[in-house]
């Protein structure tokens, strides 16, 4: 087994071990130092597991650098891919199918851990697929998770008690709910989540992705519903899981199509497996080594895609079916990444403790949808990509508009997360594969930073989350405020563009990570809009939203940290968080600043770029995907526009929330209807309630009633009929059959009684009878019988 695979597998399983130990924390913490609810052991264990995982992932990443011969600096050569694309046009399907994908220059390691089942030629297993994307994701997830675990040690500290008071919950007698703390359980769930998330990233086949997809879903359910006593929390948890299941429904349809059409779930052929048959995976089947999809037209003018099956034979799949498969898989991504129209669960998910929001609902799990869309990119056809792009565009705009009016600090961040995920989806849909995943990584850092900072604020303000009650907090909690500011600047993409001063090439911009990644996305969008003018909206939406983003993020920061305190009592009791919480903030702030250093010539971009699958346009789809060289042409223009818009947004926020010029309250009054509409989150929840939730309950009661009334009714009718028939049967028995038998018996007796008179006992009479009888018989036989015969 490859050393990277060993390291990552260990990093993946470590949190599971942690979970297995911590979940019984309620038992062993009796004996732990400090007593039952006082011990921090569970937290240390959990931090140790994920921290160990980080070290292993980092080692694997470093090994991967040399194994995959990755260069960290400099812009990649764009010339070669064009040559390949030119060459690929002339390629016949047959030649492409028979071409083996040699291991020598493979940029990935794939192998199998164990088999779940094998039916004939179908094999379903736990596999791993490691390329530079996997390595980067592993490192990012474990690093952020470690920071958040450490932060949670401080954040969840009030759970370390035997008598935790939940101020959100009132019991029947009006007092607050008292319950034992659940410190260890929180860390157990976190560890389980880390295990699931890492498994998702490590997965070597789409089925395994689905397994861990569901597992992160249930971890999310458990963590959102961590405060099980709060009805809002458990409802939000249910909503999150069920809405995700709606997406997974599509995911399953995608899986069904893939397994029946391709006969395998594997991403790619194994190259790290001693006895593995060299059968191609989905990626190799859907596109040949030049990124070409072989579309052909059958005799009945149906478009099909030709590919080589694992057994070497060539076969085909209808074009629409592969589109459906792609849309199905993407439906799963929509659910997980809270994209339109399934975005409604994520804001509600903020019911969970803030570290959960930071880890699960901003940095990792929700990004898994984007990750999968990126991972599965080679299988997506242009129609699917277009759907992805439009979904992303709609999402990023809708979510940003809601964020503008939200007042709960975490909800603003939640909508901002949805919006940013929309950016990533948009990028992937536009063919800007690296840009999307680049933004995924940078976003993970600055968004988890901001969530943790908001957590720090929430703890500092004693679980107050409404921004209108805050204000001026930067004096009380400087570390939080300024690390948060780093995050805000990063997400807005503000920068000092030095290269405008020094000329286009050379010289770096003084910018935080978000600038580079958002720049890459906007540049891709602009290029795309130029290549496909009909889809210009896909450029306008992210551009305008960049301004809105800057506006609401600065609004958040000004609202919370700048100006004068709006609630003096809250302000007076407010305090900076302990060091266990601020150090993770500082670390994350560092990464939020510098993780994308160098921009598109920097190490992160190059690392991700090494995993990019080159795809060529599909004939007949009518969509030109931008190439790297196309994008390079528009890069400067896009960057300028984006920066301008973001600057305007930030300025507007400054004017409105620091200068009160114009006064936000006035604007709110003037646009009351719009404001209401946005506060109501575009009324998606009401719509879904009317469209789906209530009908389901109605149908459920119908079915239940059908059982009770119709099916059981029929049954009871049959039973009653049976009873009635048997009653008739009894009557017939007693009235007819018994009566007739009795009648025969009675008559017989009557005859006997009437003959009694003959039985006189007189001998002489009997003799007379005998004589008469003989005479009668004689007459009968000899006189009448012959007469009878004659007749």
């Amino acid at each position, binding site marked *: 087994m490859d050393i990277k695979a060993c390291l990552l597998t260990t990093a993946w399983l470590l949190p599971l071990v942690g979970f297995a130990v911590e979940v019984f924390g309620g038992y062993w913490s009796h004996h732990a130092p400090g007593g039952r609810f006082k011990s921090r052991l569970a937290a240390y264990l959990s931090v140790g597991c994920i921290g160990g995982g980080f070290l292993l992932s980092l080692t694997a990443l470093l090994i991967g650098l040399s194994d995959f011969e990755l260069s960290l600096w400099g812009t990649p050569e764009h010339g070669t891919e064009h040559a390949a694309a030119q060459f690929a046009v002339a390629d016949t399907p047959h030649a492409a199918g028979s071409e083996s994908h040699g291991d020598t220059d493979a940029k990935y390691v794939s192998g199998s851990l164990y088999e779940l*089942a094998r039916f*004939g030629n179908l094999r379903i297993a736990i596999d791993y697929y490691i390329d530079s994307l996997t390595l980067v994701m592993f490192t990012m997830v474990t690093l952020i998770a470690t920071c958040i675990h450490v932060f949670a040690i401080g954040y969840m500290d009030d759970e370390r008690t035997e008598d935790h008071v939940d101020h959100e919950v009132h019991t029947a007698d009006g007092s607050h709910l008292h319950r034992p703390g659940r410190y260890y359980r929180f860390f157990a769930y976190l560890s389980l989540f880390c295990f699931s998330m890492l498994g998702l990233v490590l997965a070597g086949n789409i089925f395994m992705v689905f397994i861990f997809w*569901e597992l992160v879903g249930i971890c999310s359910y458990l963590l959102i519903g961590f405060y*099980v006593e709060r009805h809002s929390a458990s409802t939000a948890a249910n909503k999150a899981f069920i809405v995700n299941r709606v997406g*997974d429904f599509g995911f399953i*349809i995608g899986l*069904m199509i893939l397994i029946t059409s391709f006969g395998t779930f594997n991403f790619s052929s194994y190259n790290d497996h001693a006895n593995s048959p060299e059968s191609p995976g989905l990626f190799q089947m859907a596109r040949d080594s030049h990124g070409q999809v072989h579309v052909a037209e059958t005799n009945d003018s149906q478009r099909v895609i030709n590919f080589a099956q694992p057994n070497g034979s060539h076969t085909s799949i209808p074009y629409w079916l592969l589109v459906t498969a792609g849309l199905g898989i993407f439906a799963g991504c929509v659910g997980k990444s809270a994209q339109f129209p399934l975005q409604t669960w994520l804001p509600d998910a903020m019911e969970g403790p803030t570290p959960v929001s930071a880890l699960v609902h901003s940095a990792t799990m929700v990004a898994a949808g984007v990750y999968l869309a990126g991972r599965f990119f080679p299988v997506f056809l242009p129609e699917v990509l277009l759907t992805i792009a439009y979904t992303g565009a709609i999402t990023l705009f809708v979510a940003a508009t809601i964020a503008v009016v939200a007042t709960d600090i975490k909800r603003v961040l939640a909508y901002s997360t949805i919006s940013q995920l929309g950016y990533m989806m948009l990028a992937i849909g536009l063919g800007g594969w690296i840009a999307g995943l680049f933004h995924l990584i940078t976003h993970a850092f600055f968004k988890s930073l901001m969530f943790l900072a908001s957590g720090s604020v929430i703890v500092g303000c004693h679980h107050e989350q409404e921004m209108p009650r805050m204000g001026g907090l930067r004096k009380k909690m400087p570390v939080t405020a300024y690390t948060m500011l780093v995050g805000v600047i990063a997400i807005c993409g503000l920068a000092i563009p030095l290269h405008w001063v020094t000329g286009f090439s050379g010289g770096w911009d003084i910018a935080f990570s978000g600038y580079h990644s958002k720049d890459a996305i906007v540049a891709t969008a602009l290029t795309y809009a130029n290549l496909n003018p009909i889809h210009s909206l896909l450029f306008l939406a992210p551009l305008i939203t960049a301004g809105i983003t800057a506006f609401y993020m600065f609004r958040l920061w000004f609202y919370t940290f700048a100006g004068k305190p709006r609630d003096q009592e809250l302000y007076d009791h407010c305090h900076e968080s302990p060091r266990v919480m601020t150090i993770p903030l500082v670390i994350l702030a560092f990464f939020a600043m510098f993780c994308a250093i160098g921009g598109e010539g920097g190490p992160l971009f190059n690392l991700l770029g090494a995993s990019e699958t080159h795809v060529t346009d599909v004939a007949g789809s009518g969509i030109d995907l931008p190439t790297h060289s196309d994008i390079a042409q528009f890069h400067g223009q896009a960057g300028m526009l984006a920066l301008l818009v973001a600057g305007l947004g930030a300025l507007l926020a400054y004017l409105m929330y620091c200068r009160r010029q114009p006064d936000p309250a006035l604007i709110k009054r003037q646009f009351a209807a719009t404001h209401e509409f946005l506060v109501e989150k575009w009324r998606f929840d009401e719509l879904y309630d009317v469209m789906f939730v209530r009908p*389901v309950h109605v149908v459920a009661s119908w079915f239940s009633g059908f059982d009770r009334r119709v099916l059981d009714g029929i*049954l009871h009718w049959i039973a009653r009929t049976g009873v009635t028939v048997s009653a008739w049967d009894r009557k017939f028995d007693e009235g007819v059959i018994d009566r007739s038998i009795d009648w025969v018996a009675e008559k017989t007796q009557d005859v006997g009684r009437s003959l009694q008179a003959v039985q006189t006992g007189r001998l002489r009479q009997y003799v007379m009878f005998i004589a008469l009888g003989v005479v009668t018989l004689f007459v009968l036989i000899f006189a009448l019988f012959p007469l009878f015969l004659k007749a």
Partner: protein
Amino acid sequence: MDYQTLLPSLIIFAPTLGAIALVLMPKDNEDSLRYTALAVTAVTFLLTIALLPGYDISNANMQYVVKADWIPNWNIYYQLGLDGISLPLVILTSFISLWAMVASWSITKQIKGYLILFLLLETGMLGVFMATDFFLFYVFWEVMLLPMYFLIGIWGGPRKEYAAIKFFLFTLFGSVLMLVALLMIYFSSSYGADGEHIFDLVLLADAAQGNGLLGPDLQPWAFWLLFIGFAIKIPSVPLHTWLPDAHVEAPTPISMILAGVLLKMGGYGILRIAFPLCPEAVYSGSIVLVAIGVISIIYGAFAAMAQTDFKRLVAYSSVSHMGYVVLGIGVVGVVSVDGTGSDYWQMGINGAMFQMLGHGVSSAGMFFMVGVVYDRVHHRNINEFGGLAGKMPLYTGLAAGIFFAGLGLPGLCGFIGEVFVVLSAWQFNKALAIIAASGVILTAGYILWTLQRVFLGAEYKGPHEEALIPMLGREKIVASVLLVFAIILGVFPNLVFQYMVPSIEKLTDGMAGRIAGGF
């Protein structure tokens, strides 16, 4: 006699011997009665485990074959055997029986009679799974019926008589149909040079897949008679209404057996008898099977969502989950006449078999969990629970695990079966496959909603709050064992698949050959 031939009979009749021993024991010492019965079920379980070392995984044929004359005039034999289809179910039976017996500690009324009937029931169940003679199968099938009737009718809840009679009549109706089919098959069979009629299922299957057993006019009749008989047991919509009543009224351990084992007999019967003996009828009727399966999935899930009785909800979830079994075995239609696609059918049948095992563990667990809380507060109204997570944390943890297994969460037993079945269905019929897949949303809906109403929330809303004491040691053991097995099955499904796959491959290959040959 070596142990290979002795072991199967020993397994079947060990509970009977135990029952006889119980008859002889005094009835006032209840604990010794209980421990004896427990020891008997434990020994039976160990005996079934002892089957494993001698079982050759790679051999798809019947193993542990026993054949003795019983009624030789009519070629009826006492004939037992195990293959990859029956072995897992035999182990499931003894496993669930053991834990149901542990759960029986809460039974206090007429304990001696209860235990004797329980053990007789176990004999019947094991016999059904091990008999390879159709007549013997039928006899065991009926043997199992009566103890169940009394167990529900005497130890049940308020409407026990109604439920018991409903159960009995439904099942009897099915048995009668099966009897008709049995006779049809018997009189159509001809074996050997002199064309004798036989009941031997293995030989009948060979005949059906070789030269054909029943003609095209008779075969659909035989198949549908058998199918209705078995579908009642599964139970499939619309023949399912006995199940909620039987479950609601039955005592907890009997619900466990009912859901964990009895329902599996329907699926097993279809796989063991209806399929191999009527391949052509199966093939032409597969769309109906799949449709029934899908309807059961959706119908059961919807009906479960509307329930307010905790046990009734779990019962409807069984209807929904067993729908996957019918769906999985019904995808025989994917086999095209040239023999391709049988991989997906294998996947479907294996998924269905796994679903039976997984459901055996998870539904028994769910019923047990309902029983635990019912024993405390004596009501089952879901809307009058809440807050159990705070009062009984361990119970809540274990119950959540088991309910998640029912929800089909990966890593737990419910997932593997469901997902394989659904995946296999696409090739057969896309629309039905999509409807079946939508079941995942409904399942999540009703299970999570139930969890929320029962376990979560601030306060317990029903009566007898003071009775909500933490789980007893006995209860902890049952629940943890079931959960652990749910996890093991979910993480390492190949442990079971390795036994099932060869035998199922033999079945599918045999039938596919016959289907390819046509009538």
